[in-house]
């Protein structure tokens, strides 16, 4: 276990600054924290966008779940999507790799440009897309097979030769190697919940995607396992773009470079629909939110 885990401080500005400087390609962010503090208020700019969401809307049958989401998601950074439950965070996330295609009755409109191309276009192959944009779910969901098989499956379906080195590298990246190196043939279910979730992250990393989507990856885990995963997220953010849905605002403050705040808007006939209230750097959202709804949510939960 790495030792550079920040203690769970109250969400003042300090951890946010740490994360902003950690985004600037320094793996040991404890050191970076000092530099960031010394550098003063200068904020590192977010990189160029890899995703550009344009007026994204999702319907499940006759229910509008998400409406009018427009935002950019920067490359090689961590974007957190926060908001109250039912605000469409996960729904929005699942659009990014077309997982909503698998939901009967789901309809997605608007545009999601990925590297400038609309990934929602009907001639885009969702199977190939999901090989490039991986996903980790809320509940750890390892395959009922060995640890090694779990890593190798994604490689095989993506035409990557599953060598021992690649398996090891994926597990090292997911900070799981030391714990499982002697038991790669063991059932994945013999691991603890936190280890299972790191295995799922390793499984996603092994496919060498460009983006990894995480849907509340820590909500089923205890605080120690959560910190291990946050640490690992920060370490891999230099290589992958991470988009993380979380209901934990302190987590968003600890890990993210950019934060999108979604909320629920009442519609006619008492129906409710998720909208994007505000998007900005983590510092902007947590210290100077522009939208009163963001401010109410953040002060209500954290302040």
């Amino acid at each position, binding site marked *: 276990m790495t030792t550079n885990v920040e203690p769970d401080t109250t969400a003042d500005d300090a951890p946010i600054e740490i994360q902003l400087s950690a985004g600037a390609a320094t793996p040991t962010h404890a050191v970076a924290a000092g530099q960031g503090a010394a550098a003063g208020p200068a904020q590192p700019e977010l990189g160029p966008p890899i995703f550009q969401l344009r007026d994204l809307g999702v319907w499940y049958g006759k229910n509008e779940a998400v409406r009018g989401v427009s935002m950019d998601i920067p490359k090689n950074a961590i974007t957190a999507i926060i908001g109250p439950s039912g605000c469409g965070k996960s729904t929005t996330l699942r659009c990014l*790799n*077309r*997982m909503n*295609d*698998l*939901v*009967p*009755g*789901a*309809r997605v409109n608007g545009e999601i440009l990925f590297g400038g191309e609309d990934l929602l276009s*009907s*001639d885009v192959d*969702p*199977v*190939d*897309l*999901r*090989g*490039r944009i*991986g*996903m*980790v*779910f809320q*509940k750890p*969901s*390892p*395959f*009922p*097979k060995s640890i090694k098989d779990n890593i190798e*499956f*994604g490689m095989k*379906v*993506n035409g990557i030769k599953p060598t021992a080195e690649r398996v090891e590298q994926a597990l090292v990246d997911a900070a799981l190697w030391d714990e499982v190196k002697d038991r790669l043939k063991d059932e994945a*279910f013999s691991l603890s919940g936190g280890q299972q979730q790191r295995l*799922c992250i390793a*499984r*996603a990393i092994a*496919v060498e995607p460009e983006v990894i989507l995480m849907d509340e990856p820590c909500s089923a885990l205890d605080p120690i396992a959560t910190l291990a995963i946050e640490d690992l997220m920060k370490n891999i953010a230099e290589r992958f773009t991470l988009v993380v849905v979380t209901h934990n605002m302190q987590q968003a403050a600890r890990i993210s470079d950019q934060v999108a705040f979604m909320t629920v808007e009442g519609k006619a006939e008492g129906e409710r629909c998720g909208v994007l209230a505000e998007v900005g750097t983590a510092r902007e959202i947590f210290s100077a939110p522009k939208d009163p709804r963001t401010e109410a949510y953040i002060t209500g939960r954290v302040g």
Partner: protein
Amino acid sequence: MTTLEAPGTPPPPPAAATRPLARKRSRPSEQLFKWLVMGLTAITIAMLIWLISSVVIKGAGSLSWAFLADKPSSNPDKAGFNSALRGSVVLMIITIFFAWPIGVAAALYLEKFATQSAEASERKVRERLGSGVSGVHAGWLRVRLSWLRVRPRVVHLVDVNISNLAAVPSIIYGLLGLAIFVGILGISKSLLAGGLTLAVLILPIIIIAAREALRAVPISIEQGAMALGATRWQAVRSQVFPAALPGILTGTILAMSRAIGETAPLIVVGGIVFGTAVPSLNPLDAGNEALFAMPLQIYFWTDQPQASFQAIAAAGIIVLLATLLVMNLVAIILRNRYSKRW
């Protein structure tokens, strides 16, 4: 709230409850109900014990290796169970050979492919139609579009009817087998016709069991695989199906133990109740072999007036029951050993 007290002072007395704790008392209606359900359970078990013990008492004396190895005869002292045993073995091989792949494939389609979202494919087909294709290609796209539209209703109809089929009396399957396999396909009244009829009989049972086993695998397994860039078929074949296999096999064995005891449909498709032939164990010869089976042989013997036939009928029942018991045991072991808790 609490203050530190000087050592030696007695602790404060406990607060008074609203009333003292009630003592145990008897509840006659509770007792009565307990004895009632126990009694009813005992009746069931007693009937089972009576059935098994009467069969064993009657038949144990006739049970021997010679009984298993001899062919049928009109002389009860010489008559054996060999033809019936062979017939049942070949019947089961044929039944499983046809019913399992078809049943499992149907379950996979109904559970994993038929009910999936057609939204994306429908949009794609419509866009292609709009982009000015013509002739045969456009016609084919229109067929696909209409299929995607009616598919949910067709699947629902099939769904309801599979459950209904599982409840159809077995003699109806016998008539169906006679009409299709013997009448239309021209297969002779043989082990092959009997095995095919039993396959149709247990098909709905296998489909229902396999669907339940597939449904028991959490959707997160399939979605996890697809989120890695697997196609649905890859996800189902490599992850969902292996995870569901123990459940599918358990259901299959239970379906087979239903088939091995069936008598009525076999009589309809030409089951031999009396014959002295010995069918070959090779399932490829089944089309030319007379239709022998354990329950048919037992049925014939119990119909005979001589008491010694009753004894060998009982011996036959013991063999049939033992076979069933072994099959159910295998099913239970499979279920306990490989069933996963998610």
